[in-house]
């Protein structure tokens, strides 16, 4: 089955360290989303890309977060420096952008569980 692959699945790091999360979208999908999930805020959209171009990263703290798509098979989310409040589950999801707005499924990875101590 085609699936979105995220690494690492779990990460514990010390405050101030750099964290990089990686995502391999489903082959052929041209839209990639990064979501953050916490108990307090629920699912927040951090950034998303279409055809590797960033369309909207307004939900992302710009001072420490950055998101890129070096190629069509890899999306990265980087936090530098990390802080305890960044502890959350980070989900990557992908879909077919041309059909998303009219109603098409987006597929989620299993998430990267980040703990910053």
């Amino acid at each position, binding site marked *: 089955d085609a699936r979105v692959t995220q690494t690492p699945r779990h990460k514990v790091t010390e405050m101030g360290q750099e964290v990089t999360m990686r995502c391999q979208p489903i082959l052929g999908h041209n839209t990639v989303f990064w979501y953050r999930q916490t108990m307090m805020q629920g699912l927040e959209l951090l950034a998303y890309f279409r055809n590797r171009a960033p*369309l909207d990263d307004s939900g992302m703290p710009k001072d420490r977060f950055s998101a890129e798509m070096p190629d069509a098979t890899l999306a990265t989310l980087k936090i530098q420096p990390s802080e305890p409040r960044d502890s959350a589950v980070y989900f990557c*999801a992908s879909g077919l952008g041309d059909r*998303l*707005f009219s*109603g098409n499924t*987006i597929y989620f990875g299993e*998430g990267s569980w980040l703990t910053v101590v």
Partner: protein
Amino acid sequence: SQQGEEDPQALSIQEGENATMNCSYKTSINNLQWYRQNSGRGLVHLILIRSNEREKHSGRLRVTLDTSKKSSSLLITASRAADTASYFCATPAATSGTYKYIFGTGTRLKVLA
């Protein structure tokens, strides 16, 4: 801010009972989707309903959409312990040219065996 708000936040029922969850949204949409999340896992798509549809079924799931009230409901009939999960509604952002989905706050369903 959240586009969708689910209600109730948490629901606990006995196996065999029906579970109903509601979602309210703020702006006009052309479709609404429901997703399920098992503990510790990613979200999985359940069902999509378009704005010109009022009701849709998929197995034990029934989804309704009332665009005049900007609300949707998800009904799970004859619930099973395996239905224990969080359920989210998702709507496309009402910004032309963009394709993002905004998720609601979720309903945590617990089905007791």
